[in-house]
Every structure is written in structure tokens, then in C-alpha cells.
């Protein structure tokens, strides 16, 4: 098998030794679970090996690894789900589309949504809902409390928790 060829193996091994610890640490903070982080870090290297991606001349190895990890979390199936849900809703307000949303805009919005989904991955569900209602919908904390059936104080606690998660998630 060609993947056994020494130089490729050496390049991968070097990448692994230099950055596996970092990747694992980042994912653990992001996902809040060491086991899942270990699995995902492993899968990231497995995917690179499988795809025989060239790793010898990487300028930004960490960016490369985190992008690969992101594609594992937000995989094709999930991308399609995001896309369909977004467009389905957009279609309901189709007249607003005319001359307003260009294909480029739609594409960039979908990419933005995908990135947000990746950042939010690993966040506790209620915290994620509160966070989205607060900053995307612009609801007040008491509105959110009512909607989610929580106390005001719990909503605030979730928002803090969500912000911490965001920081961990982007802290590469």
C-alpha cells in the first residue's frame, strides 16, 4: 500500500507528534468530554491518512487540523439539513427574495450558519437555545425564561455558560 511509503509516513507522524496534543486539548475544552475529544482527534488523523492528503508542506497545520475536525462534526448530511431548513423558510417569504438575496449571499449565509453550528457544537441544549434566542432573536432574558420554562436566574446562568463555551470553542 502506497501509504506505507516512508516519507509520507514520516510527515504524518511528525504532524501527529507535533499537534495531536494540542488538537486533543482544544477538542476537550470545546466538547467538554475527554473521551469524545480523543475519538474525534483520532478520527481527524484517520481521515487525513485515508484521504492521503498532502501534509508535508502545511503552512498552518493547526488550521488544517481544526478544519478537518470541523468537517467531521458538520458532515455532508448535516450540511444538507442546515441548507434545507434555511431555504425552506426562505421560500416562505419568496417575494423578499426577488432581487434581494443573490446566490452569493445565500452561499455566504449558509457558510456562516455552518460555522456557527460548529462553534455551538458541544454546548448544552438549553444553553444553546437561550443563547440563540438572546443574540439572534433579540429576546429579553425574561421572555426567554418564559419560553423555555426556566427561571430568569437560570437563563442568565446559561448565557454565561454559553459565552464560556464560545470562548473555548474559538480558543485554538
Amino acid at each position: 500500500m502506497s501509504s506505507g511509503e516512508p516519507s509520507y509516513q514520516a510527515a504524518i507522524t511528525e504532524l501527529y507528534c507535533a499537534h495531536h496534543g494540542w488538537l486533543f486539548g482544544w477538542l476537550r475544552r470545546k466538547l467538554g468530554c475527554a473521551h469524545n475529544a480523543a475519538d474525534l482527534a483520532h478520527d481527524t488523523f484517520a481521515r487525513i491518512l485515508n484521504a492521503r492528503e498532502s501534509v508535508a508542506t502545511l503552512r498552518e497545520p493547526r488550521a488544517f487540523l481544526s478544519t478537518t475536525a470541523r468537517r467531521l462534526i458538520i458532515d455532508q448530511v448535516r450540511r444538507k439539513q442546515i441548507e434545507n431548513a434555511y431555504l425552506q423558510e426562505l421560500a416562505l417569504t419568496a417575494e423578499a427574495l426577488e432581487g434581494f438575496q443573490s446566490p452569493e449571499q445565500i452561499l455566504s449565509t449558509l457558510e456562516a450558519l455552518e460555522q456557527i453550528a460548529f462553534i455551538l457544537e458541544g454546548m448544552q441544549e438549553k444553553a444553546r437555545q437561550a443563547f440563540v434566542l438572546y443574540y439572534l432573536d433579540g429576546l429579553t432574558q425574561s421572555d426567554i425564561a418564559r419560553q423555555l420554562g426556566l427561571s430568569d436566574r437560570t437563563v442568565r446562568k446559561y448565557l454565561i455558560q454559553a459565552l464560556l463555551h464560545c470562548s473555548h470553542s474559538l480558543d485554538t
Partner: protein
Amino acid sequence: MAEQHETIDEQAAEWILRLHEEGFSEGLRLDFECWKRQSPQHAAAALRMQDVINRLQALREQSVPAKAALNAAFAGRKAVTRRKQALRALLIAGCLALPATLLLKSQYLGQWMADISTGPNDWKTQRLADNSTITLSGTSALNLRFDAQERRIELLQGEVLIEVAHDSTRPFVVQTAQGSMRALGTRFVVKRQGDTTVLTMLQSRVAAQSANEQQTLEVAAGSRALIHRDAVELAGSVSAASINQAWERHQLVVENQPLPEVLDEISRHRRGLLQFDRAALANLRVSAVLPLDDTDRALQLIAETLPLQIKTWTPWLIMISQLHPAKK
């Protein structure tokens, strides 16, 4: 050090929330600026949080579709469960050398992702460790579970053409939510279609079983079978040659099939959304050979034979409706 890091994050979160709560008052803002200047770590923590908030707020004008998309991204996601300990042992072997067995990683991959998947415009052919070959058409996903006793494929979504390499000691099983298909050496296509699995036999035979294990049926070459959770039924015959050719040329061959099913199939092979009223189009039937690599053309071809109106809002959104006879 890590502890300090944590405190900075917590303080930053508290600041950002307070600013929002108190309407971004000038005084508070200045205090926050001072806090941020304490160290690059302080500023960076605030920046990371603000970055995510900005990303969300940038979508405010379209909060409804954006929220729908985010909900869809997390809908039905179970908490990810732990995986095999064996994997961890492998990881610890880590730096020594990445063993070639990593390449046979398939059995370890769990719920994060399918082992093999394709996007809307992809077709992927892959030779497996046992020399069997699988080809996935657009937006399809499957998991591989090979061990010493059996070779198992879980088809999660879409469609796969399988050419099974003979191995009398390890049966080859394809599993879906609706049932399973067991073969020794053969060639067939399995497709997920709503709550049905469609099995198309091109060569030899397999035993198809419903998920509740109440019905098993031998399906022979040239036959098609529908597998439901509680039943397996034959559904007509097919021409193996034309299906082989269709897979080679990335075509969709349909004969007298309801239009919504055909549109689903086309939708799987393109990005963006095909919007249509399933019930309204259910009476229209299609017989055609359609190019799946050029789905615009495929839609055009359908519209040439059926009374359809195809409205293209953007390449991302196409609405299809039945054309009513001209009313003047």
C-alpha cells in the same frame, strides 16, 4: 495558569452580559475597555465571545430561516456515546508510528460521522478491505462494520451500489432502519427512500429480511424488492444492464414513477432546495433517463413531457408546481 485562564473567561462573559443588560451605557463601556487592557489574554477572551455574538447578530434580519437552520443542525442529535476502549489504546500507541491498521479504521468510527459519505454533487467508488467495491451516489452515507464474523454495512442515507467479493466464511450484510440483506457474493443496489428500503438485484441473490424479523424473502437477479420494517415485498423486474449503465453514466432511470419520488432523487444530487407540493404532484408519473450530473437539464427534460412550471428564484431555490391549463 489554566485556572487563571478560566477566571478571565468568566469575567469576560460577565462583562459582556452586563453591557447588554445595561444598554451599553457609556460608563460601563469605558470600564470594560479598561478591563480588556489588563492583558492580551483579557482582550482575546472578550474578542472571541464578541465574535460569536456578531456572527449571530449579523443574521438578525433573517432570524427565522437562520434559526430554523440551526435547529435543524442540532435536531435529533443524541448525546454522543463513548466508543470502544480499543480505540484509546490505539491512540496511546500514538507517536510510536501510525500503524497501517489506522487505515482500516472503519470499524472504529462511530456516530460522529458516517464512515463514507458523499455530498450532493459527488459520486464515490471505494474498494473495501475485503475487495468488495461500493459506489455511493449523491448525498449518501454509510458505516462499515467489518469483523472476523461478518462484513456489515449500515446504509444511513441515499443509495449504494455494492459488488460483494466472495468470502464464504464472512457473510456480507447491508443494514437499514427497515431491514437487512444478506449475501455471499453478488451485485446489487440498496436505496433509502422515505421509510422504505429499495433493493435492486443485478446478479445472483440475497436474503432480505424486515427489521422485525417476521419476513424473509429471497430476491433474485433482475428483481426489485421493497423492504419495510414489518414486511418484504417484490416490486417488479428490472433490467440489470440498463441499471449498470445508469450507474456508470450517473443517470437516473425511472419507469412510471411518481414525480415526487423522482424529484427527491434529483434533489439528492444538487445543492439547494427543490420546493414542491408533494400531494399536488403525486398523480404525475415519469418515465425517463435523466442526467444526475446536470440536474438543471434533468428538470428541463421532465418539464418537456409534463405540464410543470419551474420557477428558479436563485440556483439555490427552485419551485416546481403543476401548470394549469391557460385561463384567459
